[in-house]
């Protein structure tokens, strides 16, 4: 941990982190773990994905985040394949997670339960 002592420090920290996040060839999975997500089993999915990525030798990282608001479809996860737009899947159980790994993460095929992006954001 480094103390941020100026605005320049802050911006440097930002650049460093961004570079790390957008590291090439790395699958990035966000498991939405707010109260709604956790209540419907997001923790289990988080653990499952963490273990399975390693088991199946996939270069990826699983991160827990807050919820996106898709309460009707929790647990939800967001998967970003390198160089592609993130894709959100809803109602993810272990079976679905397995399918997502095999079909989407490995081969880029969508699976049922994909939630289309229906918002604009300032990010």
């Amino acid at each position: 941990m480094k103390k941020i002592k100026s605005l320049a420090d802050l911006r440097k920290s930002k650049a460093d982190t961004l570079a790390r996040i957008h590291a090439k060839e790395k699958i990035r999975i966000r498991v939405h773990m707010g109260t709604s997500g956790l209540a419907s089993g997001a923790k289990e999915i988080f653990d499952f994905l963490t273990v399975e990525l390693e088991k199946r030798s996939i270069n990826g990282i699983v991160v827990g985040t807050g919820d996106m608001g898709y309460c009707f479809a929790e647990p939800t996860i967001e998967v970003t394949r390198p160089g592609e737009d993130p894709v959100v899947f809803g109602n993810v159980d272990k079976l679905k997670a397995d399918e997502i790994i095999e079909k989407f993460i490995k081969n880029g095929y969508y699976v049922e339960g994909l939630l289309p992006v229906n918002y604009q954001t300032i990010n």
Partner: protein
Amino acid sequence: MAKQKKQLLVCGGKSCSSHNSEVLYDNLCLELEANALENEVSVVRSGCFGLCHLGPVVMVMPEKVVYVKVNPDDTRDIIAEHLIKGRKVERLLYHDPVSGKIIPEEKDFAPLKKQMRIVLRNCGIIDPENIEEAIAHDAYEALGRVLTEMKPADVIRIIRDSGLRGRGGGGFPTGLKWEIAYNNKSDEKYVVCNADEGDPGAFMDRSVLEGDPHAVLEAMAICGYSIGAGKGLIYIRAEYPLAVARLKTAIRQARDYGLLGDDIMGTGFSFDIEIRYGAGAFVCGEETALIHSMEGLRGEPTVKPPFPAESGFRGKPTNVNNVETFACISPIILKGAKWFSSIGTEKSKGTKVFALAGKINNVGLIEVPMGITLREVIYEIGGGIRNGKKFKAAQTGGPSGGCLTEKHLDTPIDFDNLLAAGSMMGSGGMIVMDEDDCMVSVARFFLDFTVEESCGKCSPCRIGNKRLHELLDHITKGKGVPADLDRLMNMSMVIKDTSLCGLGQSSPNPVLSTLNNFREEYEAHVTVKKCPAGQCRDLMEYFIISENCVGCTACARVCPVNAITGERKETHTINPSICIKCGACIEKCKFDAVIIR
């Protein structure tokens, strides 16, 4: 990784499904097989696109071309033209109703952009327990700029010019609030974040705190700099353990990184934040009650003025803002007042987060620009009413709000329009009701909550609401008389007019708005003693239609209280004075002879 695959997304939302999207899906599969493309192109059912009025929807990936109102018969064209020949099927593309232009691709597709995430910008995106991710998504950049480039008055001017209004319910201009706190000179001042989200079914603040706690911390520090406060307090419900835990982590990390505490970013400005817990009393969302609760006193409101900006926490000038309000601050600083005020309506700027609940398909959190219509929220973003039922009303503003009806479907939602419609913005709960909901019961339900949550300090709220509730209960039991409606009206008006705080002043709103919008339903309860929605148990009667009854005796045998009599092979009858309305006979009857009337 391999090149992105050609894929077809078929909307599997409830509304599209009811418009034959299943057949459409099957046809697409068959058509691909017929063209021997089944191994190259996959078809996937997706979640709701939020385009229910344009459904069924098909999106071709990876080029993100959207086809709307697709019939099962259109599949051939999509495969043959688009997939094989690479030509878009124009007649199935979306025609912008205003410009008449054809919008082929998702990125320009306005109906798919109904939601706008400002407050929720980082929710679900960043790891809330990792401050570096937050920083990577611009957290504390606004604070840095404020501290290095602006004077307090400049910040206040930006906030004022942005037109931001308090998201906690009242809609008081935030910039003005800051300005008042700024102008009240004192050796000590406080910034308070109101995270005492109490509306039933509302969880906007919780999601922000769970998903992006730094947005709030940063904004509080900006506010502290602007009004001259060195200390911030977050008043949060103890019932939000996850939000509390993430806030604690965030505060700790921010301190470790030097983004809270002494001499922030080397600017000499110091600001720190503490958490205070609420015990879950709804009334503690009222700012004076909240402050009393933080001081260790009974959580009850006091008369304003003095306002907290004058005399708040420990008698010092205190600026209280809601979580969602704070979450708007950094984007306003970074993108400017003009940008923010370009979103929304004339007097309500920016976006609003709503918690959609009730009889709606896509239950959840949405963030939409002010001025969106109820129709867009319910039928597009919300995916329409569950089970294809008819929309009846939407309650906004939580238990203190009122209901919006069919005639309000196309009214732009903003602070002032909601007030004019007899409801209010509140903190952003939106509960959708369908034709099966009895509005008298709905009013009673909300009163139940306010009766429970009244602090008991002032007589109209403490006793009046109880009396309102009792009378509503009486009416739903079929014991009301027509004169009761005038009493309901009078009591409601007086409670609104005389209660001490916002809770009491708004608690009769559900009664008044249902009484104004659905008076005939009330009248049915008190005159013919019927509940048109068929929800009030005491007003239902089980009845056997003689034409349908074959006298099989099945109903009589299953009746637990022997209320059904009749000879074999002859019409049976139900004795209403014995019947307990359990519904067993209806379930048993194979001839649809038993009805509720």
